């Protein structure tokens, strides 16, 4: 786990990691949230609506921005203040996603950092993007 402090932060700093969003995560998210929408649970329902497969919950995919900030950039010293996510393409169970964050703003006056995040499939398709504001706890 990274342990960057505010003083370490510079614009352009980049971290990334790879995750596979599988059926287990999909089921765990359902159990946690109770979101029973069949678009996420019923293949036939999803295909009838023009999707290749069940659609991974958007908020499950974007939950990896928590990991991006909390583990990689800046890591253990941060607290997420804001996270604005835009969803561009569906994610399907089994997709391998690269989660990347780039520091775009280091604000001395408020001791906050803004990180631009994106998740990309192996074929280069950007499935969602985010702006994450973090403060520092240590």
């Amino acid at each position: 786990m990274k342990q960057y402090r505010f003083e370490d932060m510079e614009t352009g700093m980049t971290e990334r990691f790879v995750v596979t969003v599988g059926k287990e995560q999909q089921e765990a998210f359902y159990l946690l949230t109770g979101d029973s929408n069949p678009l996420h649970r019923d293949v036939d329902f999803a295909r009838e609506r023009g999707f290749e497969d069940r659609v991974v919950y958007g908020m499950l995919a974007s939950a990896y921005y928590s990991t991006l900030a909390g583990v990689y950039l800046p890591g253990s010293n941060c607290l997420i203040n804001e996270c604005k996510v835009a969803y561009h393409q569906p994610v399907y169970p089994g997709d391998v996603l690269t989660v990347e964050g780039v520091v775009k703003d280091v604000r001395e006056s408020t001791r906050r950092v803004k990180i631009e995040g994106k998740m990309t499939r192996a074929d280069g398709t950007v499935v969602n993007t985010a702006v994450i504001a973090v403060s520092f706890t240590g």
Partner: protein
Amino acid sequence: MSREEILDRVNKVFREVFDDEDVAVTFASTAADVEGWDSLRHITLIEAVEDEFDIRFKINEVTGMKDVGEMVDIIAERI
């Protein structure tokens, strides 16, 4: 730029940050006068005001402003 002109632009920032066209602050306004102006929103406001006027506040100013008028005075010094 006059204090009134700065206040007009500060009000524009407040309306954007609070996503509320009805928000209107005066020189005497404080966090207690505006619903939702909590500590986290204050930080967002400060950053938005900095971007609007292309200035930077000092850390002690961020935590020490007693009202909007004081914010306007600091902006007037920097632009």
